[in-house]
């Protein structure tokens, strides 16, 4: 009966309930949309960071992380065939990719610029989808003296596919070496500062230029990012058992920018969440207080005919909880539907600071976001009823019955 009374009371003053529900629905839906947008950004940035640069895990020769190398590839990995074979046996591993990063000068005969070079295994690099091809083609296996150039650097050096550039860098012995590479394509990653300096060459070309057979690191790509820690733990055990002189890092250890973005977004999300929480609390508390004021004589009657104070308290608490429940359900529906509409609408957002390409506005509907948005509505509405409900339960019966 108490629940029946509470439920029916919600619809007594429909206009006021509607306004309160609107606040709850907007609050919950807003949390779903903003939370979904945030999660989508986190997911996108994480996967882009992993696929573009880092891989899920990076394996190095022991000492690489703790020692400042005097010469290039001083702590490079010599023979990784055995390690690769063992790592790739793990069903959670999608592939491994050898990589060297190096720096030097790039020249077109008239002008020189510094470059950040990445030597890759062409077929593996294509699978990583680490860049967007702008002109020409990607690198292919079996080539040695071909290169891809970042969009900004290509413009600066005024090159197009078919042109030649000379790369000059320090070899592993410390001497200078230079080699001509044919530009086969230009690419962009979206990060302007990187695209203004980036080149990619086949691993064999870099080995020749650097005068070594070593690689700098072995990237491990997993099928699921969530398996990262588990795979690393297993690999560490494997490395010890086989006496491999390697050390490793996860993408999370290396993704400083990603963590900064997460920190900032979570801060903003928390701030907005707090504002929504306060608005909802004040709105629902106001509704319940108004209800109590209007129903003072009714409360007096209920108590006069034998209703105990705790039951009065429960009645108003239940009303708050029911408003929160209805608001939460409607907020979920509204947020989910509106989120899907946004996802299908293909809304393009401008490039973020430091990026050259825009991206689609997408809302990721994670169960955790839906649950927390629903909980926000239910919990805040219930919490904000506690004090008004307590006040109602403390009313003096005689005064309440005489209330006009």
């Amino acid at each position, binding site marked *: *009966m108490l629940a029946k009374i509470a439920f029916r009371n919600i619809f007594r003053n429909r206009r006021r309930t509607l306004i309160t529900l609107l606040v709850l629905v907007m609050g919950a839906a807003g949390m779903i949309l903003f939370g979904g947008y945030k999660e989508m950004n986190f997911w996108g940035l994480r996967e882009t960071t992993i696929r573009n640069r880092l891989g899920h895990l990076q394996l190095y020769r022991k000492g690489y992380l703790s020692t400042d190398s005097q010469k290039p590839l001083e702590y490079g990995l010599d023979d990784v065939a055995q390690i690769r074979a063992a790592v790739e046996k793990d069903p959670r591993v999608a592939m491994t990719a050898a990589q060297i990063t190096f720096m030097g000068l790039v020249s077109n005969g008239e002008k020189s610029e510094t470059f950040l070079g990445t030597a890759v295994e062409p077929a593996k690099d294509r699978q990583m989808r680490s860049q967007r091809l702008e002109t020409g083609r990607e690198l292919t296996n079996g080539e040695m003296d071909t290169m891809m150039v970042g969009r900004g650097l290509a413009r600066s050096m005024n090159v197009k596919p078919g042109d030649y550039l000379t790369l000059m860098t320090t070899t592993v012995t410390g001497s200078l070496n230079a080699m001509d590479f044919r530009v086969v394509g230009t690419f962009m990653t979206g990060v302007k500062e990187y695209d203004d300096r980036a080149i990619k060459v086949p691993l064999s070309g870099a080995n020749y230029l650097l005068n070594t057979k070593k690689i700098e690191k072995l990237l491990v790509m997993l099928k699921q990012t969530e398996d990262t820690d588990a795979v690393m733990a297993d690999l560490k055990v494997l490395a010890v058992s086989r006496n491999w002189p390697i050390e490793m890092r996860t993408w999370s250890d290396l993704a400083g920018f990603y963590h900064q973005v997460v920190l900032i977004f979570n801060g903003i999300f928390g701030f907005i969440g707090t504002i929504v929480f306060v608005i909802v609390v004040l709105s629902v508390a106001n509704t319940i207080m108004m209800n109590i004021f209007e129903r003072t*004589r009714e409360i007096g*009657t209920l108590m*006069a*005919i*034998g*209703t*105990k104070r705790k039951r009065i308290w429960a009645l108003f608490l239940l009303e708050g909880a029911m408003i929160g429940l209805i608001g939460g359900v409607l907020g979920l529906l509204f947020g989910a539907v509106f989120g899907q509409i946004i996802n299908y609408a293909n809304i393009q957002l401008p490039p973020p600071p430091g990026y050259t390409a825009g991206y689609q506005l997408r809302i990721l509907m994670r169960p955790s976001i839906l649950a927390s948005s629903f909980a926000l509505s239910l919990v805040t509405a219930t919490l904000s009823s506690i004090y008004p409900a307590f006040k109602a339960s403390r009313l003096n*019966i005689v005064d309440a*019955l005489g209330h006009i």
Partner: protein
Amino acid sequence: MTNSVIALRGVRKCYRLGKVEVPALSGIDLEIQGGEFGALAGPSGSGKTTLLNLVGCLDKPTAGHILLDGADITETSLDRLADIRASKIGFIFQTFNLLPVLTAFENVEYPLLLSGVSRKERQERVHEWLYHVGLTGQATQRPDQLSGGQRQRVAIARAMVTRPVLVLADEPTANLDSETAAQILDLLSSINGETGVTFLFATHDPAIIARAHRRIRLRDGRIAADERNHQLIEGVLNAR
């Protein structure tokens, strides 16, 4: 009429108005016997409603003792008083005071829920009392779909359904037209005659005062007169 339902011993009640203490009742000694159909009369401010509130366990006296059904309830806890009200006292208000979100049936059923009466028995008792007050056909209607007289009948059924020992009615006819008021008074009188439940009214209504077996006149918080209409009492006793 041998058992005392309510007994007041030296009851005083004062209210605070700022720093001033205003006496509402001063040294009331009163005993209401089972089955009485009594009226508290007197001008506004004489203490009728205050006395009714004390008898109904809605308020506590500043001094003195109140005994309900032989038990001293003066120092009883609020929760226990709520239980006493739910099981032993029925209330009828001037403004009917029904719960607007409940149907007539549910309004009558509500006090039984507080007393933990089984569903089957609740159904039987509510139907019995709705029939008794002539509202069987209006069981599913909400108060705003009922006339003033019908609402007061629902309130009477709600007061009686718990089988109380005492029904307190504060100006039960004040919001009704004279014809409806007379019908309600007839109904209350017949219920008193049939069930032997004690009724105590606080009223200005001459019709109620005329029909009351006992008239307690209050003035300035004191009992100014306490008269019994022996002719009416004899009639009721003979009818029983």
